[in-house]
């Protein structure tokens, strides 16, 4: 799996756009809206190498923070200009409101790409990068408000271990969110999806990234991955409660959610 991602890292984003016709961006946006993080949230994004989820998180809490500040100012109608500008100055330094995201990935190349992207796009505050294994996380217990793993869990050898680790590092009340390719039950759609996956995707892989094999692997790993109900059961086995899933695009992708209560 490691070598697949080494060669894939640099072209990852381009391939994602081509394979999914840009729809992966929508899926990730939906994930963020479902999370609905408030300023001050601590997020651990696992297998998040190139930063897609992390950047969305930062944007989201930044605008939530701005709205928060605007509401605060509205309530300060009776203050003098002096007092208003002072209170604004204090809050200015916490544009993220203490929100933080840690991106953890097992692949150095993916993290490098992510870090470079962050620099280009101007993300620095509240963002850190760690090389680590989802099955053996280098984080202390009960630390994070939210744990996300977007299109990463199918590449984990021992999913049960990754889920246990997710449970361990989340605070009580914390939320587990998994965005992953899943199973299409509709037979016609399933046929079309298979056709697209096996005929088109490896070809795209060859044309764009010069790598047929890695993308063949990708397609096969999607087929092998447990379907919605099975993954739900695995998440429950790890101790999560109120486990549920939401199908996107008839099950091509699903968001699983659970809470540590």
């Amino acid at each position, binding site marked *: 799996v490691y070598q697949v991602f080494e060669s894939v890292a640099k072209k990852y984003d381009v391939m994602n756009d081509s394979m999914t016709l840009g729809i992966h961006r929508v899926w990730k946006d939906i994930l963020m809206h479902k999370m609905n993080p408030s300023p001050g949230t601590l997020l651990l994004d696992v297998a998040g190498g190139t930063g897609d989820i992390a950047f969305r998180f930062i944007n989201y809490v930044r605008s939530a923070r701005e709205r928060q500040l605007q509401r605060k100012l509205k309530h300060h109608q009776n203050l003098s200009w002096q007092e208003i500008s002072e209170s604004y100055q204090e809050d200015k330094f916490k544009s993220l409101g203490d929100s933080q995201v840690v991106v953890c990935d097992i692949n*150095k190349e993916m993290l490098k790409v992510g*870090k470079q992207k962050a620099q280009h796009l101007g993300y620095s505050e509240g963002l*850190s990068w760690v*090389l*680590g*294994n989802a099955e*053996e996380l*280098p984080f*202390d217990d009960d630390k994070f408000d939210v744990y996300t793993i977007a299109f990463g869990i199918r590449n984990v050898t021992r999913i049960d271990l990754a889920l246990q680790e997710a449970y361990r590092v989340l605070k009580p009340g914390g939320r587990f969110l998994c965005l992953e390719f899943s199973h299409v039950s509709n037979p016609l759609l399933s046929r079309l999806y298979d056709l697209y996956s096996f005929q088109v995707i490896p070809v795209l892989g060859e044309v764009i990234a010069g790598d047929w094999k890695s993308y063949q692997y990708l397609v096969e790993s999607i087929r092998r991955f447990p379907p919605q109900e099975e993954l739900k059961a695995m998440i429950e086995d790890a101790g999560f409660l109120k486990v549920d899933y939401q199908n996107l695009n008839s099950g091509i992708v699903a968001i699983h959610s659970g809470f540590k209560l």
Partner: protein
Amino acid sequence: GQGSGSGRPQPLEPALLRFLVCPLSKRPLRYEEATNELINEELGIAYPIIDGIPNMIPEAARTTQKKPPAEGSKQP
């Protein structure tokens, strides 16, 4: 300062030290500025920090061998 230019190691994000522990023992780590590593004293291993990114994969860690003091030897 007297930096050696492009060879300077990137500093670790200080906030990370709040969360990071040894992936094996889940115990706290000590940041060693001299070697830019995160040390687990108990297990005697050190995790490297490369380009500001800590490498917390156990296979990548090196053992920090501590030589026992020889009898009657001078202080270094």
